[in-house]
């Protein structure tokens, strides 16, 4: 195992994050604050409590998920796409590193960044709403799993993408709609029956539901189902990455 290689890749990814730290930090803080102003204060004051939780607090888990999923995906996809784009990927291919070590470095870096941003958003929400976290450890576990699994997916997208358009296509066309329709800002029980059924086909719905359970002990589906869903998603990403490793898809022609 070439841990030195994992270390240098991870540190370089993190260095990129801290180099633009202000931007990385300010963007989520500002967008979260805006969500709280619009949904929490302006609209939220007209919405009654959702499942016994004030609307402002209710949207916190969904807001965190929204940012974390987007950040994990884009960080990991850009991280591996960029060497492909600039041509520096030759170095990874000619170095004594296995695919696993490259994945660990890039996905580790992307997941860490997303995790930090998730915590920043959480901290910001304490400024706007009264929040108690029922199961802090479960909350952290869900957060970490989401960061890792979406970074894995982002890595796959980065390997697949052949241009910048494709790189932003999947986050834009698939992830953002899935998160918005996955109950980030509402409870599925508030929907008409048909839409409730449709929502159950959205994988992100299970993640948000489980994450929300860790905060409020309230969930649309049992927490075990959420855990199974995120485990399945991670497994699919890992299997796909293993397949890329076996075949050299898009990397080693």
């Amino acid at each position, binding site marked *: 195992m070439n841990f030195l290689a994992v270390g240098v890749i991870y540190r370089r990814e993190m260095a990129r994050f801290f180099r633009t730290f202000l931007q990385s930090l300010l963007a989520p803080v500002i967008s979260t604050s805006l969500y709280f102003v619009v949904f929490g204060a302006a609209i939220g004051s007209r919405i009654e409590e959702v499942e016994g939780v004030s609307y402002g607090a209710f949207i916190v888990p969904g807001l965190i998920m929204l940012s974390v999923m987007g950040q994990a995906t884009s960080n990991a996809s850009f991280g591996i796409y960029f060497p492909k784009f600039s*041509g520096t990927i030759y170095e990874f291919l000619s170095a004594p590193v296995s695919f696993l070590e490259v994945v660990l470095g890039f996905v580790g870096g992307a997941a860490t960044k997303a995790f930090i941003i998730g915590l920043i958003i959480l901290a910001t929400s304490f400024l706007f709403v009264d929040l108690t976290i029922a199961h802090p450890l479960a909350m952290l576990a869900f957060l970490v799993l989401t960061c890792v699994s979406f970074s894995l997916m982002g890595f796959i997208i980065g390997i697949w993408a052949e241009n910048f358009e494709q790189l932003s296509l999947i986050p834009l066309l698939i992830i953002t709609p899935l998160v918005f329709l996955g109950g980030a800002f509402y409870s599925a029980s508030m929907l008409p029956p048909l839409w409730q059924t449709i929502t159950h086909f959205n994988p992100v719905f299970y993640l948000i539901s489980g994450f929300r359970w860790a905060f409020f002990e309230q969930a649309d589906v049992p927490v075990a189902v959420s855990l199974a869903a995120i485990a399945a998603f991670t497994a699919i990403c890992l299997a796909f990455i293993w397949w890329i490793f076996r075949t050299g898809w898009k990397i080693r022609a």
Partner: protein
Amino acid sequence: MTDIVTVEKLVKRYKGGFEALKGVDLAIREGEILALLGPNGAGKTTLISAICGITMPSSGSVRVGGKDVVKEYRDTRSMIGLVPQEVNLELFETVWNQVRFSRGLFDKAPDDAFLEEMLKGLSLWDKKDSKTIELSGGMKRRVLIAKALSHNPRILFLDEPTAGVDVELRRGMWETVAELKRQGVTIILTTHYIEEAEAIADRIGIISAGKILLVEEKDSLMARLSQKELRIELAEPLDRVPEALADTGLTLAEDGRRLVYSYDTAGGGGTGITALLSRLKEGGVRMTDISTHQSSLEEIFVDLVEHDGADRQETAQ
């Protein structure tokens, strides 16, 4: 000298059936400078890529330091430094960060003293805190070399190191290569500049259309260069070399319109030209023109490449 790289029956077939390498055999000796000479699209970069692990061979084997490049890739790649043809660098990273990164990627513990020494050797030390984007073209190429050397490799591959580089920089590059050889590094470079191969190589390999046509000591190739030809254009075509001149070694060319006499200028002795000319006169051969001709490495090269092409056309028919 022992062989540090052995390539056997290496074939690289791309999807769609194109064969970039058609059964390449090559042995690279430890400590030598081998120049791989060939036209564009000959397979030079593919061959290097297969040895360095960037592309997977379709069949055949490559061993580096006795290890297989596919099964024991960690061992083989640790021995190799690769300088790619394109200037592929992280634009916004400093020189120092890039060489440290490369060293780590090759599983070598940080050694700033070593890297400092290396950058000084490449005249990059005062640029260590500059970002790639701030460097000149020649410096960027040296950064590529610095990255390749950061893990102290035994073998260095330089893919077209002087393509699009001006004369002065090219000489600087040659000096760098010579210095590395003195340090015991085995160097393989690809080029399509014959003068480059002539200037720095110990041996020259000629590759064309995915096959190695020859690998020869530069000096023996150069010996061929000392061969000269005397070309005698004839007033009337001959069917064959006249009996009386059979012992001169003359050959007929151009449908009997030219007599060719080969001689060697390297020996320091007589070339036999004076005697030949008087015998031609005695034999009553009427000449319209006489010229001498020296074959260059370029011609040997073109001849081999074209000859190979002709062979393949014949087999195809």
